[in-house]
């Protein structure tokens, strides 16, 4: 900082010892204040974020449960109803992302909008839409899997490993 001043402006008088001490005390005070602010600031944010993630993630799950109940009362068994619900939720997530609504929800909800399967749909549509101008192969189709790709890769690896372990333990 001091060096910059010398080069930029006209040459300054060298600081007296008292001024140097005062300056150092000032920067020290600033650092102490910054540390204090850092230690205080994140706490309310963590609590608010956690609550928002809880109620929005919970609401998405509750909506999915309503859809599941509709499917089971229509005669689907538990497993098929769950699959059908996933399809509907993926559709809702993709559609709301297209409309630009899901990202607004995400700003508040954080993990509450990422972790439900609607967030997985969002992670597919958002980059695909963004890179559309790069074409339908390298733009849309390739970018769809920016985040979904790793999810599928690790999901498949773990599931095959589980299968192999189960097979050889049997």
């Amino acid at each position, binding site marked *: 900082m001091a060096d910059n001043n010398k080069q930029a402006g006209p040459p300054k008088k060298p600081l007296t010892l008292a001024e140097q001490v005062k300056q150092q005390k000032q920067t020290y005070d600033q650092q102490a204040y910054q540390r204090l602010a850092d230690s205080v600031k994140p706490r309310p944010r*963590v609590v608010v*974020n*956690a609550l928002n*993630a*809880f109620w*929005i*993630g*919970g*609401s998405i*799950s*509750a909506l*999915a*449960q*309503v*859809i599941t109940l509709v499917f089971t009362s229509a005669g689907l068994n538990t497993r098929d109803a*769950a699959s059908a*619900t*996933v*399809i509907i*939720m*993926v559709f809702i997530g*993709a*559609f709301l992302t*297209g409309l*630009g609504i899901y990202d607004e929800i995400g700003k508040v909800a*954080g*993990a*509450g909008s*990422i*972790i*439900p*399967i*609607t*967030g*997985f*749909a969002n*992670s*597919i*549509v958002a980059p*695909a*839409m963004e890179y*559309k101008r790069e074409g*339908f192969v390298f733009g849309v*189709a390739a970018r*769809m899997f920016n*985040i*979904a790709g*790793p*999810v*599928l890769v*690790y*999901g*498949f690896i*773990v*599931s*095959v490993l*589980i*299968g192999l372990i*189960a*097979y050889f333990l049997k």
Partner: protein
Amino acid sequence: MSIVMAFLIGGLICLVGQLIMDLTPYKVTPAHILVGFVTGGAILSALGLYGPLVKIGGAGATIPISGFGHNLAQGTLEAVQAKGLLGAFSGGITAGAAGIAAAVIFGFTMAVLFNPRG
């Protein structure tokens, strides 16, 4: 009643994810959360710990991405019982097929139909 339980369990799973994002010293991105919850869900499921959560929470446990991991794991385990080694490879993806196909089809359609804002 099942709707309330779905709200609570689904909310709690998201709450855990949010706390991981906010309280760990690493830069945890949404991609890390999704990958972590899929693998975590699959492992918990294989150990028999995720099934009870699905019984209690219904969609609250199956709609979070950890439920997708649970789906993969259970599909694999059942297929291993039925078909042996072949099932280890085919079971998980078969079980997850509906969700994956829906994600690809709807994801592609929406990305073609809509343009990003701003």
